[in-house]
């Protein structure tokens, strides 16, 4: 499907993610008041978490269903703020879940963005890519935190 090698792919995602995420963090720090209350720190933590997932989804772009799902959710949140509730346009998707694995497969569908609408094959492929990107995201966040701790 994708002609690029795995290493190349992950590296470019990693750098794109890092750039965007760090830019967001520095912007947050610039706007942060000098004395932060516990409540402000908690709220900022929530925003940092969203920025992390958002930056990774942007780095991957529309190439993957899971990243498209995240970007779609973010744009909807920004646009509608929960006001407009569209009737869900659900296509009839044949999922092909293996018998006996129902609960595990459903749990996986809930964990992977966009998983509910995928057929079994896509779900497994998307999960693999999602896990690779998630662990890259964690490693980068870890590096940044270590750097700031010095």
């Amino acid at each position, binding site marked *: 499907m994708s002609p690029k090698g795995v290493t190349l792919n992950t590296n470019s995602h990693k750098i794109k993610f890092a750039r965007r995420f760090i830019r967001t963090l520095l912007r947050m720090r610039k706007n942060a008041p000098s004395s932060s209350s516990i409540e402000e720190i908690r709220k900022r933590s*929530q925003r940092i978490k969203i920025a992390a997932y958002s930056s990774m989804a942007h780095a991957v772009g529309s190439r993957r269903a899971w990243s498209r799902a995240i970007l779609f959710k973010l744009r909807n949140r920004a646009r509608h703020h929960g006001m407009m509730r569209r009737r869900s346009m659900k296509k009839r998707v044949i999922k092909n879940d293996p018998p006996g694995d129902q609960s595990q497969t459903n749990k996986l569908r809930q964990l992977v963005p966009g998983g509910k*609408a995928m057929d079994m094959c896509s779900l497994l492929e998307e999960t693999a890519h999602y896990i690779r990107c998630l662990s890259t995201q964690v490693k980068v966040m870890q590096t940044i935190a270590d750097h700031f701790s010095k």
Partner: protein
Amino acid sequence: MSSRRSRSTQSGVSRNITDDQITDLVSKLQQLIPEIRNRRSDKVSASKVLQETCNYIRSLHREVDDLSDRLSNLLATTDSDSAQAAIIRSLLM
């Protein structure tokens, strides 16, 4: 186990999904999960792989939460402005 043939019309591509394809994808997934990779046993059921995958994804989500908390706390205390270049440099290595 008889192989099921079903057609998926998602994204306009019709695919015949066989059990073999799913088994293949499950084994690829297996390689990514540290729990299973470190145990070095070939006989892991698909159900177990899915279960460990869910656990692994949940643990990654938790790590993101913890790191977000940590970063939020750190953001309140750091001052250095040369942060960005230095971080990207260390990430590229």
